């Protein structure tokens, strides 16, 4: 019997989430019955391996190895991104084949192929996707813009939830433009005003928007069924999911898809106080996203992709003032609830290594892209698990021997004493498949701790 959640220390919460992860449940809430003792053994070994790498208390039996793909499983099965975004039944076989063939230590779910019909129904404007602005064999790509205007900070800070429920969707989904006319329901607290905020719901454009939302919901459910089918099958095959959900650094939430890169960088100069107040308003929401996902799924790892704090994007001073304090608050808020932030630092992070050391021990994992791993290991040794850095050029055009050499070098440099996860540094689509296999096999042979 678990102790009451609120009475637990952060350490106990983390252990509880790891315990739930290592003993997965079936949809009815009973202990999952694996099809074979071997599959169950593999599953538990893999969770234990990742757990030990993260907690820094014990050396794992060997270096864990993860593959974190974008549309690679589709390409590996001869499918295009368009195929899997529009034919959900093709997702599970392709994703399963990928992980079963390459045998890494976990899977990252099959959420990459966002349902195409869902995007069609709502008229998503934030991205171009296959056959909708980019070719069928190309991944979706974001269109940066100002989806929140420079003069809207006050409204956002006052009521971020209203902004995310109504304002923002009305701008990024063409079918949801009428949502911008909907008032908050705060006036419904007295009977004589109760009906007034509901009036717009009787107007035909709003009705059409709500209809579109319901149809989009149907599509999302269908798609989630396909993703869960994959998750079920791959778990039964002995692969744990290395993430429960995702959250973001407050600066990236604003810089990626609210104000855009140009917008947020202008705000650093023109309205720094408002930018900071908006990030403060966002911080508890980002924590909640991660905590809810981890508790609901029963896995402590929550993904945090980092974008606009990379080397070159901000000066040290700007990073320390605008980026790190709020990312740190999100990290610590997650850690307090037993969640392990699984941080994906895109680009280079060399100039940030000394700053991010300021974290509690054994509570986070940092996966790097182009960061120098000698420096990363040195900075975070004894503080956090490091990983990543398998370079995209090597995966795409490198030789098998280069893949072996780089893998061994990473294990030599970062593997020492544990606290290391081998993984790719950036999401990948088409690569040399033999290089992926070589990396996984080399880790299994060369990465064993004696």
């Amino acid at each position: 019997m678990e102790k009451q959640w609120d009475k637990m220390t952060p350490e106990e919460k983390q252990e509880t989430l790891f315990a739930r992860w290592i003993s997965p449940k079936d949809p009815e809430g009973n202990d999952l019955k694996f099809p074979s003792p071997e599959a169950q053994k593999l599953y538990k070994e893999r969770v234990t391996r990742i757990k030990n790498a993260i907690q820094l208390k014990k050396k794992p039996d060997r270096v864990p190895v993860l593959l974190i793909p974008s549309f690679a499983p589709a390409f590996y099965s001869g499918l295009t991104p368009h195929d899997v975004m529009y034919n959900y039944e093709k997702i599970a076989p392709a994703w399963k084949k990928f992980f079963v063939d390459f045998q890494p230590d976990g899977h990252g779910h099959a959420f990459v192929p966002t349902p195409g019909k869902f995007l069609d129904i709502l008229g998503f404007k934030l991205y171009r996707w296959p056959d909708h602005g980019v070719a069928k064999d190309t991944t979706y790509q974001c269109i940066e813009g100002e989806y929140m205007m420079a003069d809207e900070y006050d409204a956002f800070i006052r009521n971020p939830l209203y902004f995310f429920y109504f304002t923002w969707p009305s701008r990024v989904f063409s079918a949801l433009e009428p949502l911008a006319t909907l008032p908050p329901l705060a006036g419904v607290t007295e009977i004589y005003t109760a009906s007034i905020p509901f009036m717009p719901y009787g107007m035909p454009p709003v009705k059409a928007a709500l209809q579109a939302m319901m149809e989009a919901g149907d599509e999302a459910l269908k798609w989630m069924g396909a993703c869960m089918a994959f998750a079920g099958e791959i778990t039964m095959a002995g692969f744990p999911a290395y993430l429960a959900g995702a959250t973001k650094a407050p600066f990236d939430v604003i810089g990626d898809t609210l104000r855009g890169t140009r917008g947020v960088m202008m705000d650093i100069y023109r309205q720094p106080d408002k930018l900071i107040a908006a990030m403060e308003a966002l911080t508890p929401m980002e924590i909640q996203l991660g905590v809810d996902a981890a508790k609901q799924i029963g896995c402590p790892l929550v993904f945090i992709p980092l974008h606009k704090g990379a080397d070159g994007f901000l000066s040290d001073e700007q990073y320390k003032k605008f980026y790190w304090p709020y990312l740190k608050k999100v990290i610590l808020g997650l850690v307090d609830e037993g969640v392990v932030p699984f941080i994906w630092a895109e680009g280079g992070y060399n100039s940030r290594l000394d700053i991010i050391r300021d974290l509690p021990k054994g509570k986070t994992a940092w996966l790097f892209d182009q960061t120098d791993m000698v420096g990363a290991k040195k900075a975070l040794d004894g503080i956090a698990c490091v990983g990543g850095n398998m370079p995209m050029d090597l995966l795409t055009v490198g030789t098998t021997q280069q893949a072996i050499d780089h893998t061994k070098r990473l294990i030599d440099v970062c593997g020492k004493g544990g606290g290391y996860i081998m993984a790719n540094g950036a999401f990948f689509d088409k690569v040399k498949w033999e290089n992926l296999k070589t990396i996984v096999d080399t880790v299994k042979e060369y990465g064993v701790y004696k």
Partner: protein
Amino acid sequence: MAKDLVKTLADLKEQEAIRIVEERLKAKEDPLKILEDARKGMEIVGKRFANSEYFIPDLVYSGEILKSVTELVKPKLARTAQSKKLGKVVFGTVAGDIHDIGKNIVVFMLDVSGFEVHDLGVDVPVQKFVDKIKETGAPVVGLSGFLALAFDSMKQTVEAIQAAGLRNNVKIMIGGGQMSDEIKNYTGADAYGRDAMAGVSLAKKWIGAS
């Protein structure tokens, strides 16, 4: 006496820079002189960026200040300033890739460094690069790409330039996201530039202006 516009712009003092420009225009100063000072200010911004004193937000902001200054000065210009350009550069994000933040920064830095930049935008078909090189006779080509899929698009673009018989007339640089020297070799380009100022240095070197 108005304060130094070169320094004010280089130090990213937006309000002060605009005030100086307004004062100098009121004093009927030659607008071309004002633009020349602004250009000098931007040159310092570029140098500070190259020296890691300035970062992307500072570049973006300097661009905004420059835009405001230019807008103030433009109506007073009797003729369009035809300052002598260092040379022509054809630039674009390669086919299949629609990312433009990195490309725009390099194009901006090339522009303020005195190059005549022909920016073809994003998702640029191979033939469009070839046509523009033919049309302009530009000796420098910049291929930008964020995604790994750009590796192949870049390779195809370089091959098309070769097939059109233009390869010996141009130097080609690549940059962005996951690019590297390995990828430079794979695509057949001449150089990989890590950041915007590396791109400017390459262009200057190739044009013989450094």
